[in-house]
């Protein structure tokens, strides 16, 4: 399993939640086989994971990992695109892609490294920073409200919706492995402390609880999703909120095969 992580110098801060996510990802990749995996990462601390994993990867632009993953799957349905993103990628810059990929049930896995701050640009509020968050661009505290990504994804039609915590490695590994195996749009929101700018580690340890293994109806899942509003202290449920099976976007597309150009042009005569 050691050949899943490259010997590249790792520049995440000591104690960063990304280590926990990378570790769970490593185990999940070992489980599904690394040859078919394409890791796609965006911009921010999480993005460096493309330099660290020994799988095919696309280290792409800010906010664009989701359509890139759909393109990979559309092109070669055998591949397993794992689209990474921070909260900035997924809920700020690229939120339209996230909603639409869920809506079309694109058969990709989305892992959101949600540390609830723009960390690499040295601390500004994102869509999941609580109101009042003090960053370098909000010295008096952010005046904006938060979005609830779990609730949003349930509304948008995601067919596998889960929340993990980088401090709960066993559960996180299970969720990622299941998410990759799920035939359809898998969304895993991962709470991840930023030890430098927004160290939520102790607070999460206090508030987080693992949901029992259960299959909730959509409305029950929605009720569960709004239990925590990303503003208050908690309690914060982790685990699988919702799972549903329906045809995926990519399997609904007709296949690729050579075109008879002469026959095609004959129709235009």
């Amino acid at each position: 399993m050691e050949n899943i992580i490259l010997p590249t110098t790792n520049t995440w801060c000591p104690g960063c939640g990304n280590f926990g996510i990378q570790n769970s990802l490593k185990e999940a990749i070992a489980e599904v086989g690394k040859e078919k995996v394409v890791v796609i990462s965006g911009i921010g601390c999480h993005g460096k994971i493309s330099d660290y994993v020994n799988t095919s990867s696309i280290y792409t632009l800010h906010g664009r990992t989701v359509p890139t993953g759909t393109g990979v799957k559309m092109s070669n349905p055998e591949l397993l695109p794992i689209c990474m993103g921070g909260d900035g990628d997924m809920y700020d810059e690229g939120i339209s892609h996230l909603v639409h990929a869920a809506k079309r049930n694109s058969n990709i896995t989305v892992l959101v490294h949600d540390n609830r701050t723009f960390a690499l640009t040295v601390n500004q509020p994102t869509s999941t920073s609580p109101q009042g968050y003090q960053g370098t661009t909000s010295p008096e505290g952010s005046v904006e409200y938060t979005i609830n990504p779990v609730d949003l994804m349930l509304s948008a039609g995601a067919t596998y919706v889960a929340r993990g915590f980088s401090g709960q490695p066993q559960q996180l590994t299970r969720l990622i492995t299941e998410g990759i195996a799920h035939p359809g749009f898998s969304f895993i929101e991962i709470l991840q402390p930023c030890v430098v700018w927004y160290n939520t580690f102790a607070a999460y340890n206090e508030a987080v609880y693992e949901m029992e293994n259960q299959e909730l109806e959509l409305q029950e899942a929605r009720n569960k999703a709004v239990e925590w509003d990303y503003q208050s202290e908690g309690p914060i449920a982790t685990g699988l909120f919702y799972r549903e099976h329906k045809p995926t976007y990519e399997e609904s597309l007709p296949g690729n095969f050579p075109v008879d150009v002469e026959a095609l042009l004959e129709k235009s005569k």
Partner: protein
Amino acid sequence: MDNFQIIVGGAAGEGSKKAGQILARLFNSRGFRVFVHEDYHSLIRGGHNFSQITVNRDRQQNAISEKIDFLLALNEETITKHQHKLKDGGILIYDSDSIEAELPEDNGFEVLKVPAANIIEEAEASNLMKNTALIAALAKSVGMDWEKTKQVLSRLLTKETDKNLQVAEIAFSQTEQLKELAAEAGEPLPVLTGNSAIAVGAIRAGLENYIAYPMTPATGVLTYLVNVPGVKTAQPENEISVINMAIGSAFAGRRTMIGSSGGGFALMSESISLLAQSETPMQIVLSQRMGPATGVPTYVGQCDLDFALNVGHGDMQRLVTAPGDGDEAYYLSGWGLNMAWKYQLPVILMTDKELSENTYVLTREQEIYKEEPNEAENTADYLRYDGEDISPLQYPGGQAVVKATGYEHTPGGISEEEPEGIVAMQNKRLRKYDKLKEELEQLETVKSYGQGKVAVIFWGSVKGAILEAAQDLPIKLVQPLVLQPFPENQMKAALEGAEKVVCVELNSTGQLARVLRGHGIEVNDKILKYDARPFTIEGLREQLQALVN
């Protein structure tokens, strides 16, 4: 009759566009060369739309005249707007049951009244088949035989074919022959819009996936390809999604193309830079319309040259092509897709409202085939960005770990921030571009037509009108087919001996003229048109004549 022009017009929804396409195919069936120009506004129903069809028995004439031989009117406005264009001896054909035309006396043209409402009643057909009656009347008036007319109509009128044929036959039998068509000229050829020609050319070069968001006048590429089994298409939520989806698709090994007009292309621009940095092969169709911003959505402009040549942040390289007619669109689209995969960079194919939506005959005198790219063995030691210039391609799914990235990177695709590594990788990309430039020197990237001391340079869809307008004038026409890397040597060779250099463009500032000046070529004069309409043969001829008098 061997060379004539037809206008067919009506309100949006009355079928004038369909009628134009049928008329083109009717004369194509006799081996005549046809061209159709489309004029329509940005609305769904009402307004005034028209198609102008140029028919020439002996050669391809991809331009429209100010004077016409036939006017087919589906409504009164069409007569009001276009009757002054009819030549002496021309024919006005209209639905005399629903239009009360007040025609000027001594107008010099003949009038062919078609009682379309009566015919439709007799055939118990739908009112939408009025245009079928007018088409049949025109066919008879020029002496087409019924069997051939029927053949074309039944191929193109796929809905309620029998009713349509019934309407056509009544109109045909009630009409008298007024003209005599010249003899058949050979076999029919494929008749396609420029957008369709771009699509087919790309298929020839192995196109597998086409991704686009609807935007006039580029939409036709997508609507053509959705009907081609074997090619996958996708229409995601916006153009940013389009290009990033396409990057994933090409990374996974499938030949992929995308397309839009200026606004959508602008949204793609950050990712165009990613194409260059990640060395992802991609052809982007940029179909221009009159800007800025929303501009004039369904009318022509050549205003995005500056933008296309400079799109993408960073010190990046691209290949930009500019076909001028259906055949060039077909060839350059296929060639551009091959080049994208050979040199692993963004290729921008520039078209415009006219070239994209007008209809051309495809002669395919220059044929295009898929060229296989340079690929590495699929082994565990594969490095995506290895080598001196062009790095062999590989795709994920096997032993090779394929790492594409927008960061500056090592040969293995890992982020690189050390000075030596940064310079080495930039130099690799520059050497790759040098190789492309060397190859371009061996190809015909600048075309010339005619001879004269005055050299007139044009690009893109202006070709159709200018080739006609400059007939028999002492002018040398010069057309660059590649705009970046700019074919400076071939352009200078084409201009050798020219005493005066003039640029003809559909924009207000002379964007190509600026490019030429940047390459040390003095442009003495510019003929610019930016009313969002194409040049007519007569209008442009007058301006060209003034250059040589």
